[in-house]
């Protein structure tokens, strides 16, 4: 398992400056957690950056890990591709403790990546990033006709929906019949 060090710059304790001693607040060492995606590459992220994710924040609050325990037990997100998780981690680090701007131009332009990013961000419950992503998704169909929207967002026609529904019903019927037959066989 390889490891990348994300957000470690904030981990290094700051050198004392010339500020008066009485004014200096005691520095609390920042805690770090570890996450990995489908590719098992572990990302080290500060608790401050992870606060953007309601899901991870909730997990952290409930677990009460020490630094060693956190390192030994990275949060596994097997349903998220490694590059997508990297993007999410980068975003969280960039916006750590900062008010989020109204627009974010660093989001991926490729539709497949954006799709995966929306899925990941929604799963991790990162509200601000989800809003940005969804704005970008909405921009895809700005000023487009219904037919163009259908093509861009790959929306099936009513006929295709009906056909899919019929197919699903047929399949469900067959499965139910199979189960009944199996149950009857068991009873005999």
């Amino acid at each position, binding site marked *: 398992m390889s490891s990348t060090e994300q957000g470690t710059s904030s981990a290094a304790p700051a050198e004392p400056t010339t500020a008066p001693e009485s004014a200096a607040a005691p520095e609390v060492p920042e805690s770090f957690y570890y996450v990995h995606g489908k590719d098992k590459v572990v990302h080290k992220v500060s608790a401050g950056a992870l606060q953007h994710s309601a899901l991870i924040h909730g997990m952290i609050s409930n677990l009460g890990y020490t630094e060693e325990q956190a390192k030994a037990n990275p949060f596994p997100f097997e349903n998220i591709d490694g590059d997508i998780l990297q993007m999410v981690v980068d975003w969280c680090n960039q916006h750590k403790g900062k008010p989020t701007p109204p627009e974010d131009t660093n989001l991926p332009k490729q539709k497949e990546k954006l799709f995966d990013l929306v*899925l990941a961000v929604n799963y991790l419950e990162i509200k601000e990033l*989800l809003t940005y992503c969804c704005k970008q998704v*909405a921009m895809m169909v700005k*000023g487009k006709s219904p037919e163009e929207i259908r093509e861009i967002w790959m*929306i099936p026609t009513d006929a295709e929906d009906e056909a899919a529904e019929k197919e699903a019903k047929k399949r469900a019927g067959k499965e139910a019949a199979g189960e009944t037959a199996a149950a009857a066989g068991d009873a005999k």
Partner: protein
Amino acid sequence: MIHRQLQLFWLLLCRSSSAIVNIANTLLSLVYNLLNVFLKLSSPRKWLADQPQKSMENRARFRLLHLDYVAIREVLNVLDPTDYINFSKVSKACRKLSAIKKPYKVCLTILTSSSIMIVNGSITYQIRWTNVKNNYGTRMEWLWWDESRKYLDRCSENPLDDMKEFYQYARSLVGVDIDRAVFDMDHFNGKCREIVDWLGLNFSEMQALCVSGRDQRQEELQYVLDNVKVKDSLNICAETIEQLPLKIPETIQKLCITNGSWITLDYVMSLKMSQLALRDTHLTNQDLNEFLKSWMQMKSHRNLESFETDLTNHEDFPVVGLRGITYKMGPRRPEL
């Protein structure tokens, strides 16, 4: 000799084999094409349905409906109203997804162009229908402080009907009622009653109405006032040919009449609104004195909170208009 015959036979075989291959190729492609046509004719729906999929495969697309419901809703929430409506028209499933009550405020205007303003928080979308062909599909955006106004112009042979159709569709989809209406009767083009009847049919009452126009028939303006039910604010800027008193519904709270040359003291005394603004009246200072005393002694206008008018005679007002009334002169209001 035999050798020569064999050579000739071989040559003939080679030539005829290439001809045979050519013929076979032609026949095969003919059969394939015929089969294709037959398949298309026998299942046109399937064939037609395959077409967009094939074209989509070539280009990267975004499967919106494969996202989680929360994400889909988030996307739909940031769509412009026109894009939102276009999305709802894509399929039955899309219509089901978009048929949700929205807290938008809608303003309908019939001025030089017909338009609908949809107010969503600090963003106002205005869709205008005009018969100016150059304006088709033009989108503009203005930012005023923290308020954003987005315009979309649509060219139309019949702006009024297209606006009505758009509104009715939007209403059936997101359940928005008209909050305000702004009419210039000069642009009704003889359709006053038709428009008013359509409004009456589609909703019971609106918050505010502003009517303007020049040299309108009294009867037509009165028809508007009688049939468009207004709850809060009525602004009458229209000028009638007859210049006779108008019958104003008593249910409204705020009344503003511009071009009020027909307003008499008796008319003012009969009004029951909580806010009155009467302009260009012929009310004398004596009339105003009588009204003010009656209001202050609570003999009339018990609901009245504010009263605005312009004076026909500024100089005499303190002496005549405020006779017998204790008053304090505030700073002069700057000219608007």
